[in-house]
Each structure stands twice: as structure tokens, then as C-alpha cells.
């Protein structure tokens, strides 16, 4: 009984498929083994037979059992050491003709574990067991296993690895050299671009330094939370900023007053806006700063599309490379390079970031008519329309549900008069958007109708109406056609051949009808199916097929609940009935279990495997925990191989080709010869 239990335990342990043994079972095993040497004999034999299995997971577990017992029992040690050659062959792969079985990762693990274990055995038991010592020396001196090497690789493996590394290093070196060269070449460009960008920014926004230190400016702090990167932006804004502030802080009467009195003119070319959100600088392009802005745009484009990717590429080349170079000298060089590259990249990114923060209004050139004023938050939100018309006739405004043609000033605002004045002032300034807008208003003619109006019902109908090809019937629609449907047969013009009298004019009712009526086939629009079949499947999920009416597998599509049961009672009944019928159709002698029993008794194949394929699947696999070795072979490549290298197919093909050749050319002796 003990022995049976032992075999069972060993089998369970080895076929668990886990990288670690189940400690409870191991304990039980040891407990039984402790009883007598006979038990150990038995365990030893079962472990060895498991070690012989062609599956790395089984071997790994068996090896773990063996190493557990090895440290415990002298008898087990003697047995194992007596057969140490075989043991090494099965675990350390000493015989190259007997490679470790798949799966590969487990085999590798088994190998390294075995090598480590043999080493530890050698240190603790080597002096007492001679063959163990011999085996250790064999591994060390003949197989050249490096016990220090964590991977426990043999010489050839190591050499291969080195070769590969050398190759990679060569590639990296070439790549780094190319990058360095490129870097040297384009460094000047990048530097120039950066400097240019910086000076552009300085021009646009005095003291908006790229490398400005975050200076905390408490003076004009307007209760705006400054982001870290913008802390330095506070300083330069001084007056312009103040000027602009009024736009956002509507109620701040005193502020605007200061601004009013403090400013010389609104026709100041640069308009920097800070939104109340407090994080956006706004630079607007005007005629004055246009060249600067355009240069800046150009620079931005160059930096973001060319320089930054290049620098990023160099940075990427470097880290993969450095660790393969052991020499400290080269290392330091490359380190300095790395630091330099990092700085370069940082400055490039900083430049881009500043550019982003500036929010240069580059669009103004192209779409300056799109903005009536920079204070557009004064307007109520108007939904985006295609075909925005800048001018709405006054008499139509009411009809369109819009406000009276007041200039964009909220009447509620207390500072409306000031605003009005300012707007007028703006309009006088030819560079301001307001002025452009005014010019546009005058230039663009008034359109006939507007699509911005609310949807007109008739128009809506028209939009939905189908478009049909134009025909003659439409041309004469509603008119009586004099000779519709008449076919004229011309009399023969021949001189002496005269055909029998024919009616010259034939009236064809069909043609007549055709010219008076019109068939319009209107299939409607395609509406994609949004529901799915949702019938319960064998694997617990729901059928995902999206058929319109009927699923080819589950019949009519009916509404179903979460579990896939039909919602309606009659559907449910119908389905149950169907199920019952299906079950009845299968005669009970085709019951899978019964058939299998009969098959086992008679030895004849009744086809139980075909009938109950689904049910048998689980049973067929003896050890479900072990990874399936055959599964890995089921790749697209192997499947293709099966097809392409199919012996029958290829030979048939060759025969066919031969026969065709023979049929065609057999009468020509030079072809017939071969």
C-alpha cells in the first residue's frame, strides 16, 4: 500500500507542471521514505523512470524530488551516485546525442539547477562518494561547465554567445560612429537654430529667455497661479500684461482704470494675453512682428521635425551601446557625450516648450477674419458653422434669432462705453483684427440666404429626397407627347426591290407607357446591424454574430437577457422544444459513455470519439498541468509545411507536369530524351 502511495505521489509531483514542488506532498513522501530503505529503492526507481520522460517539466520535478531525497538519505545517495552517468545525461545534457526535451525554457532551468545542485552536492558529499566527485570533475574538465556561470553553459554555448555579442558590438560601434559624425556635422546647425529661436523669442517677448531662471516676481502678481515654467514670464509682462488683464477680469474696475490711464495707445503692436485660467501666454502676429514670427515658425518646424528626432536618435543609439564596451577610457568619452547630448536635447525641448507657451497666433494671417476680436469671450458661444458669413443683414437678424446688430459689446457690462471706444480705436488701427474685420464686412457681398438659419422643414425634406437620374420623361413631364410610343418604319429606298406593304407607323403601348411613367427604385439606406445573436455558446460566452434576421447557427434572432436566455416566453419554449428534439434524435446507444464501454469490451471502434468529441477533450489529456509539447508545433509555419511538403501532393504535381510535357513534346526526339 505504501508503495502504491509512493508511486502515486511521485507521479502527482512530477506531472504537476509547477516549477516548485508541492511541499505537503514532498513531506508525505519523505515520511514514507523514512520508514525503510526498500521504500527509497522504490522511490528511486520511479524517480528515474520519470526522469526518462521526454518532457522537461516532468524531469525538472523529478530532479527536485531527487535532490530533496539526496540530502536526506544515504541509501538514496548511493543509488543515485551508482547511476550518476545516466542521471547527468538526463539532467545536465552530458550526452550531446540526448538533448534535453522541450519546452526549452524549462529545460534550460533544469540544466542550470542541476549544475548548481551537483556543485553543492560535490562540496558536501564529494569526499564520501567517489563517483560524485568523478562526475563533478567530468563536468568541470571534460564538459568544461563553468560552475560560476549562472547560466551554466558549456563552452560552445558560451562561444556562440560571445560571437553574437561581438557582432552586435560591431554594429553598435558603426552606428555610434555614424551618429557621432552626424552629430558633429549638424551640431552647428542646431546651435544656430537654437540661438536664432532664442533671439526671436526675445524680440517677440523681451526677456523671454530660453534659459531664464525662474524668478519669483511678487510685484505685479495678479492672483494668477504661475506654473513653474512660467514663473519667469511674470516679469516681462509688466505693462502690456496689465493692459490685457482687463479683458478677463471684467469687474475689476480699478484695474482697467489704471490700464486706461496708464497706457498710451491701444495701437500697441504686440498683444499678449493671459487667460484667466492663468496658464497661457498669447502672442499675436501682426504686421510688425510678422517676419519674426514667420522665422520662428520656420525654426520651430525645423527643430521639431529635424533636429529633435535626430538628437533623440543619437541618444537612443548610445545607451544600448555603452554597456557593451568595457574599456573605461571609451566609456568616459561616451559618458561625456551622453551628458552633452542630454543637454542638447533638453535645450531643444525647452525651446519647443517655450514656443508652445507663447501661443503664437500664426493663424491670423490665414484666418484673420475668423476672429472679430481677441476678447472673444465676450461673445456668447456660437456653434461652429460651415460657411460663416461675416455680415448678417440687419433686417434678418431678428428672424435668425440673433441679437440686434450691436457691436460685440455686452450691454450689461459696466465698461461698455469704454469698450466701444476701444473697439473703434482698434478699428482705426489698420493692424488690428477689428480693422480687418471691418474691411471684410464692407467687401464681402451679402449672400442670398444663410445656412446658419434654423432648419427649414421643406429644406429638410429636400435634403432627404433621393436624387434620380434625369430622363426624357422628366423633360416632358405633364405634357402630352404627340408621337410618343410610335415607331416609324422607313420604307425601303431601293430602286426595284420593293418589300411588301408595311405599316409605316407602329404604336407601341410599352414605349408609350415608358415615356410617361417612371419607376424609381428606392432601397433605402444601409443601416448597420447593431444587435448580435447572443445565443449561449458551449464555452459560456454568447454568440457574437451580427446577422440582421437570422443567425445561421442559432436561428431567428430574438431578444435575449444577460445569460443569453430568450426574453419572451414563447421563444424560450421553442428553444426548449428544439433541444428536446435534438436529444431524442440521438439514439441512446450512441451515448458516449456506453459506447466507450462497449468499445473497451469489444475492441471495435464504434465512433465514440467522433460523437462526443467535446466531452472527451478533457479526458484525452492525461496531465492537464503539463505544458503541451504538441501545441508549440501547431504554428502557421508548420501547418504550411505540412501542406507544401506533403509527399503525396508534390509527387502528384510532379507526375502531372511530367505527363503534360510528355503529351506535348513526346514526338520531338530532343525533348523525349529527357
Amino acid at each position: 500500500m505504501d508503495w502504491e502511495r509512493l508511486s502515486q505521489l511521485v507521479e502527482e509531483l512530477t506531472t504537476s507542471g509547477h516549477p516548485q514542488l508541492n511541499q505537503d506532498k514532498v513531506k508525505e513522501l519523505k515520511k514514507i521514505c523514512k520508514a525503510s530503505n526498500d521504500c527509497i529503492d522504490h522511490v528511486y526507481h520511479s524517480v528515474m523512470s520519470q526522469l526518462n520522460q521526454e518532457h522537461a517539466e516532468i524531469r525538472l520535478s523529478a530532479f527536485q524530488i531527487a535532490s530533496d531525497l539526496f540530502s536526506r538519505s544515504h541509501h538514496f545517495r548511493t543509488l543515485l551516485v551508482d547511476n550518476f552517468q545516466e542521471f547527468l545525461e538526463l539532467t545536465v545534457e552530458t550526452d550531446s546525442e540526448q538533448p534535453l526535451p522541450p519546452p526549452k525554457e524549462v529545460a534550460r532551468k533544469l540544466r542550470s539547477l542541476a549544475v548548481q545542485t551537483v556543485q553543492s552536492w560535490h562540496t558536501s558529499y564529494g569526499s564520501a562518494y567517489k563517483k560524485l566527485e568523478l562526475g563533478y570533475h567530468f563536468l568541470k574538465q571534460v564538459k568544461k561547465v563553468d560552475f560560476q556561470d549562472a547560466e551554466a553553459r558549456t563552452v560552445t554555448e558560451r562561444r556562440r554567445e560571445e560571437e553574437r555579442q561581438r557582432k552586435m558590438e560591431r554594429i553598435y560601434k558603426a552606428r555610434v560612429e555614424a551618429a557621432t559624425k552626424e552629430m558633429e556635422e549638424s551640431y552647428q546647425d542646431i546651435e544656430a537654430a537654437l540661438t536664432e529661436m532664442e533671439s526671436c523669442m526675445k524680440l517677440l517677448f523681451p526677456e523671454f529667455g530660453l534659459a531664464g531662471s525662474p524668478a519669483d516676481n511678487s510685484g505685479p502678481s495678479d492672483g494668477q497661479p504661475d506654473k513653474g515654467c512660467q514663473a519667469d514670464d511674470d516679469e516681462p509682462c509688466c505693462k502690456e500684461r496689465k493692459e490685457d488683464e482687463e479683458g478677463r477680469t471684467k469687474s475689476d474696475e480699478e484695474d482697467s482704470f489704471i490700464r486706461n490711464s496708464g497706457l498710451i495707445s491701444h495701437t500697441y503692436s504686440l498683444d499678449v494675453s493671459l487667460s484667466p485660467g492663468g496658464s497661457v501666454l498669447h502672442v499675436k502676429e501682426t504686421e510688425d512682428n510678422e517676419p519674426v514670427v514667420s522665422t520662428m515658425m520656420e525654426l520651430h518646424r525645423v527643430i521639431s521635425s529635424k533636429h529633435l528626432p535626430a538628437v533623440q536618435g543619437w541618444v537612443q543609439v548610445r545607451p544600448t551601446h555603452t554597456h557593451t564596451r568595457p574599456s573605461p577610457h571609451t566609456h568616459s568619452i561616451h559618458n561625456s557625450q551622453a551628458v552633452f547630448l542630454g543637454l542638447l536635447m533638453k535645450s531643444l525641448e525647452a525651446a519647443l516648450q517655450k514656443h508652445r507657451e507663447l501661443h503664437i497666433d500664426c493663424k491670423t494671417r490665414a484666418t484673420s477674419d475668423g476672429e472679430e476680436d481677441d476678447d472673444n469671450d465676450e461673445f456668447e458661444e456660437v456653434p461652429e458653422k460651415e460657411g460663416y458669413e461675416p455680415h448678417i443683414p440687419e433686417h434678418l437678424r431678428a428672424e435668425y434669432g440673433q441679437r440686434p446688430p450691436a457691436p460685440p459689446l455686452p450691454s450689461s457690462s459696466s465698461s461698455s462705453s469704454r469698450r466701444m471706444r476701444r473697439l473703434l480705436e482698434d478699428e482705426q488701427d489698420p493692424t488690428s483684427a477689428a480693422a480687418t474685420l471691418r474691411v471684410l464686412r464692407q467687401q464681402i457681398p451679402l449672400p442670398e440666404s444663410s445656412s446658419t438659419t434654423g432648419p427649414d422643414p421643406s429644406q429638410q425634406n429636400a435634403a432627404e429626397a433621393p436624387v434620380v437620374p434625369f430622363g426624357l420623361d422628366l423633360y416632358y413631364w405633364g405634357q402630352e407627347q404627340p408621337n410618343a410610343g410610335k415607331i416609324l418604319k422607313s420604307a425601303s429606298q431601293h430602286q426595284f426591290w420593293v418589300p411588301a406593304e408595311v405599316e409605316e407607323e407602329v404604336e407601341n403601348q410599352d414605349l408609350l407607357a415608358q415615356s410617361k411613367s417612371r419607376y424609381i427604385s428606392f432601397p433605402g439606406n444601409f443601416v448597420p446591424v447593431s444587435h448580435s445573436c447572443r445565443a449561449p455558446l458551449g464555452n459560456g460566452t454568447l454568440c457574437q454574430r451580427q446577422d440582421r434576421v437570422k443567425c445561421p447557427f442559432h436561428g431567428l434572432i430574438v431578444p435575449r437577457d444577460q445569460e443569453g436566455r430568450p426574453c419572451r416566453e414563447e421563444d424560450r419554449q421553442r428553444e426548449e422544444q428544439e433541444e428536446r428534439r435534438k436529444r431524442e434524435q440521438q439514439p441512446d446507444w450512441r451515448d458516449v459513455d456506453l459506447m466507450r464501454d462497449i468499445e473497451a469490451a469489444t475492441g471495435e471502434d464504434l465512433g465514440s470519439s467522433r460523437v462526443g468529441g467535446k466531452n472527451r477533450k478533457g479526458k484525452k489529456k492525461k496531465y492537464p498541468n503539463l505544458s503541451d509539447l504538441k501545441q508549440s508545433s501547431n504554428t502557421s509555419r508548420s501547418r504550411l509545411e505540412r501542406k507544401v511538403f506533403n509527399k503525396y501532393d508534390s509527387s502528384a504535381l510532379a507526375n502531372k507536369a511530367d505527363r503534360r510535357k510528355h503529351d506535348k513534346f513526346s514526338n520531338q526526339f530532343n525533348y523525349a530524351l529527357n
Partner: protein
Amino acid sequence: MLGFLSARQAGVDDPLRLRRAESTRRVLSLKLNPDRDVDRIHGNGINTIDIDAIEGRYMLSGGADGVIVIYDLENHSGKQQYTCRPVRTVGRSSRHVHKFSVETVQWYPYDTGMFVSSSFDKTMKVWDTETLKPAEAFEFEGNVYSHHLSPIARKHSLIAVGTKNPKIQLCDLKSGSRIHVLQGHRAEVLAVRWSPRYENILATASADSKVNIWDVRRASGSLFTLDQHNGEKSKASSQAENTAHNGRVNGLCFTSDGLYLLTTGTDDRMRLWNSATGANTLVNYGKVCNESRKRLQFSVSHGCSPEFVFVPCGSSVAVYALHTGELITMLRGHYNNVDCCEFHPDYQELYSGGKDGNLLAWVPVVRTADVEEEPNGENKVAASLSAVNPAFQDNWSSDED
């Protein structure tokens, strides 16, 4: 044992009987013993070993790296544990070392002052043991597979040399020249052996599956060719010639009395022949794994009552009873193919060398004192054993209970 002793005391028995019985017992108890080690000198496989016949004290070994080592086998320390030390070595640094693998080494049968080695570098060298310089070197056209000096010859000092050339060369130590050629084989000669009974009788084994027996006084041809079918042509009518094996014959060994000859071949067979008549004794040894392309050195025990054959078989050494063909035991200890083994007739020890570079000594287990039947005698033995070495103790942890 006691019976033999008392019979010996009473003089009823031949002294030889006790000796035979004891040596047989010792051979049967051969085991890989931790008490006996041989220093590891060879970095590569060991192809050949030879124990001198005079004192039985020095052992020559030739390795695949061309190195030749002389070991001292005698244990003078008085302790059980003994490691055989190399006394002299022809190492790689020596000027005279063989360039390629040494295939055969042999002591001069009458004196340990001289030994002969042959190698795949197409030379055979006669060495002076004192100076470790070659006194004579013979050069051949092909690789030298094997050579042999007659162990009993008094009237000649010929070395038979088997090379890649099918002709067997006879070199005379007296003149230092090749004096004779024996023709008869058609493929390379893998093994040559002088009979230990008649000084002019020579056996040669070749890759053409033939074993020829020569009398070197007769130059015209071989005395006879061993035939595995004993002349029953009906069985092998297709074969025109007598063959000893169905593959290459790569091992030859006379029994110590010279009456029988053993051959091994790559057909995984070993055959025992009557050396006088050339008849196949048809002893069935079963399968003796043998895939060596070179010479296989095996040996026969001496002075046991059924004689034993020690023959390399894969990575182990098989021990057969000579005349019954019964497999006695397999000595497993090498981790790669075993190439050579040599029996020490004085101490009933076996030395074996293999491709794994190990030289293993198989030593009879010392008989433990017969313990009188005591209630727990077993435990005492175990206790004494574990007292010797803590590694023999069982180490069950208490949590398994």
C-alpha cells in the same frame, strides 16, 4: 576461506587452490574504491595503459594529447587510502613528446628502464625511462595503431607494429631497423599481439574483419586465419575468405597461458578462439558494445579459478567469465567511453582509462571482520560507517514525522 586455510595447513591441498580461491573472491568484489585514487594528469582521454611485468609497480599511460605518464602503484604508506602519484611525465613541454595521440605504450618486458610508445604522429619511440628521452624512433608512412613486444621472447627482440598500412612491420630493437614485413591483410592493422606461450607466434587483427596468426620464422604468409564459422562454408558461402568478425576487429588478447585468444569487433561481439587450432570456441558473451575506430585494449585475469575477461563496453567495463561467457558484473564509473583496461595480476586490481580523462582504479573491497550474530549488529556496522564519514549519515529532518 577457513576451510581452504585448514586444508592448506594440513597439506591436503595444493597451495594454488587457496590462492585461486582468494583471488577469485577478490576479483568478484572489485569496486570503485574511494581509498584508491590516481592523480589526474591527462587533460584528454586516455588511450592506453600498461603495468610492468617485473615488479607490477609502475604503470604507463598514454593520453590522447600525446602525454605519457608513469605512475607508482605501490602503496608504501601503510594506510588504506592511497593516491597513485605520477613519478615521471613526458608532458607537452617536453621536446620529445608525441605530437598526436599516443595509441599504445608498453614496458620492455624484462626491465622498467625502457618502454615503447607509438602514436598517430606516425612514429614509434623507444624511451629511456631515466632520462625520458627516446633512444630510438621509428617512422612509418601511416598512423600507428598498435605495437607489441613479445613478453617471453628470448631469442628475438622484435616489435610488431600495426599501422594504417596493411603490412605488418617487424622492428628489431637490436639493430634499430625495420627488418621484416608480413603481408596478408587488406586494411589497416588495428591490433597486434605476441603469444605469451610461443615466442614466434603473432596474432594480428585488422579492419578487414580478419585475424591472422603468424609464425615470424615463416615469411611467406600467415599460419592461418581465424574463421568465425569454423569452416562451415554453407553458412557463409558468399564470403570467399575466413573472417573473425562481421566488422572491424579492434581488440586482441591472449589468455595468460596463451592457449586461447580473445577478439573483439565492431559487430559488438567478442569471440574466444583456440589459439593452437584457430577454432572458434563459440562462447557467447552477448552484446559487447564497441564502436571504437581504434584499438581497444582489454585484459584477462590471471590466477583465478574461472578466469575473467575485463572488456570496455561503452562507458563501463564488463566482466565476463572467460569460458562460460556469463556476464559477471558491469563496472560503472566512467563518464565517457572506456578505451583501455589493464588487470594487475598481483593485487587483483583493475585499472581503466577512458575518454573522460579519468584513470580509475577498481580495487577489491576489503573484507570486513565477520561480526558474530548480535541482536543489533547491523546498526553497529552502520554506526561505525557513519562514524568514519558524516556524509554517510541519513539526514531526515524531524518535521516529516
